[in-house]
């Protein structure tokens, strides 16, 4: 089992890249700006409001997936183009170890960047709250939300690594990663809406044992971004895996697991048969 060795090496390699520092700085800066804009000193400060109204839509659901794609897209194809893959595969590693080791290593590196980037401003907010400049800063909500942000990042790392494994060149991998990003961030609602409309018109949904409404909800949470939004909002509202929407949340969790495993598997299926 050499997956941990690859994951660790890839983690070491990734966290030493200059991009990591830039990421941490960028996350910190953006969180700090949002905190300042949305909760000016002296006014009512709501951690949950800051997260769900500002950090969520502007940072987590748009920037984090993009960063995930950037971190993941060259995982395999980059090594393939440079030739370090030869060094890696001359050691007793299977190609599956390589693909999933990369998902783990880069996912961990991205998570580290998210945690570091979110925690630096959190320390400041916490200090301000202690000093009485702002009203209570909810540490629990903030940390929990950071976990959801990291999860979303890891999902996109996994998708991008899958593209990377399937691609013959860096360019193909980048195109695949960016296309996935555009699909989930911008086009998902429109495409699934059309699909559903067309299916309904064609009478395909009637015979199924589910309603159009159920399919619509499923397609929504099938988008990992919507899924994480749903779960994180439920978490901030104290309703995580409870309350009326519990089924929806379970669907969302399942789909996140699916997106973490299926793209690397699909990429591996192609990668495993390739001549390198």
């Amino acid at each position, binding site marked *: 089992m050499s997956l941990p060795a690859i994951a660790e090496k890839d983690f070491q*390699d990734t966290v030493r890249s200059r991009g990591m520092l830039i990421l941490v700085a960028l996350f910190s800066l953006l969180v700090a700006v949002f905190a300042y804009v949305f909760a000016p000193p002296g006014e009512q400060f709501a951690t949950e409001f800051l997260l769900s109204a500002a950090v969520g839509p502007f940072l987590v659901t748009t920037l984090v997936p993009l960063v995930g794609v950037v971190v993941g897209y060259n995982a395999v194809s980059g090594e393939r183009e440079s*030739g*370090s893959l030869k060094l890696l595969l*001359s*050691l007793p590693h299977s190609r599956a170890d390589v693909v999933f080791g990369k998902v783990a290593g880069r996912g961990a590196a991205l998570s580290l960047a998210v945690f570091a980037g979110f925690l630096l401003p959190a320390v400041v907010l916490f200090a301000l709250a202690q000093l009485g400049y702002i009203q209570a800063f909810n540490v629990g909500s903030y940390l929990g939300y950071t976990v959801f942000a990291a999860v979303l990042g890891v999902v996109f790392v996994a998708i991008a690594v899958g593209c990377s494994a399937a691609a013959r060149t860096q360019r193909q991998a980048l195109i695949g990663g960016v296309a996935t990003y555009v699909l989930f961030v911008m086009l998902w609602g429109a495409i699934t809406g059309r699909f559903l409309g067309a299916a309904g018109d064609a009478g395909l949904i009637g015979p199924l044992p589910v309603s159009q409404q159920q399919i619509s909800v499923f397609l929504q949470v099938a988008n990992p971004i919507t899924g994480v939004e749903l779960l994180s909002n439920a978490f901030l509202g104290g309703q995580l895996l409870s309350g009326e929407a519990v089924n929806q949340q379970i669907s969302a969790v399942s789909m996140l697991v699916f997106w973490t495993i299926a793209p690397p598997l699909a990429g591996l299926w192609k990668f495993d048969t390739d*001549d390198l």
Partner: protein
Amino acid sequence: MTAIELRGVTKEFADVTAVRDLDLTVEEGEVYGFLGPNGAGKSTTIDMVLDLVRPTAGTVRVLEQDATADGVAIRQRTGVLPDGFSVYDRLTGRQHVEFAVRSKEADDDPDALLDRVGLLDDAGRTAGGYSKGMRQRLALAMALAGDPDLLILDEPSSGLDPAGAKEMREIVRAEADRGATVFFSSHILEQVEAVCDRVGILREGDLVAEDSVAGLREAVGGEETLEIAVGDDADADAVAAVRDLDGVSRVDRDGDALVVSCADGAKTRVIGALEDAGVAVADFHTREASLEDLFLAYTEGDAPGAGGEDPGEEGVDDTDEADAGDIGDTGDADDTDEHEEVGR
């Protein structure tokens, strides 16, 4: 037991057949030199042994296991120095070796391996700053991790200076003495001769010869080359007299010397004929056909093993110079001619 066994292996790429119906056997414990000009299919063959490339037809077995199905188990016992690889620029030399040791579940001391390849002083630097030769040494250190049963070295000397190439050969010998099988490819012939028990020559995807170096030399023809110091004495008549002798295939004038290619037994007659023609023979020595001549005979000749190729034709080396890279190795006193290594 066989270390590497290829049976009827063919590899076709979209536009070219790189290897054609190749049978190759490397026995356990031997040092096998895999020779051929660039583009002959050496790297494709090695890539198939390493399961980086899958054969179109035929079977590849390594350490008695299937190259594709049991690749991980094979590489657990194999050390590989790939060709055309690159390092992880941001990781140090030591981190590379630690990774190799861990990957092979070995218990080597990374610093001892780095010391063995002469890289200990630079172990803490990131490999991105390494020269080509240092990267080659680093990959060798990684290959040596875990005392592999089989070492596969693809063009191991590329990027190494002569001293480095010599150290590389010493490590190959030491590994062979330990009992490891060594399979390495090269287009630098002297290095193959210096360390190999057996040599296989690949040409356009076919194995055109496979033998010991001595055996190959015999197959190319029992000719030897006489170099006779004659001063200014030898006139055209004397040269013609030698050329007319039985067993003499070629006579060339080279400054103060005559270079005569002749059959093994004709040496005395050549000297005799010269003396009969009134030429004072100051000195003479014989040269064996060099590996380079052999190589050219096999890779450019019409038929493998045909003696028609004149072994003394060009770039003749004394084979005592086999360790061409050894600085300070004075070798044979007769070694006066410099030579170029093909493809360097």
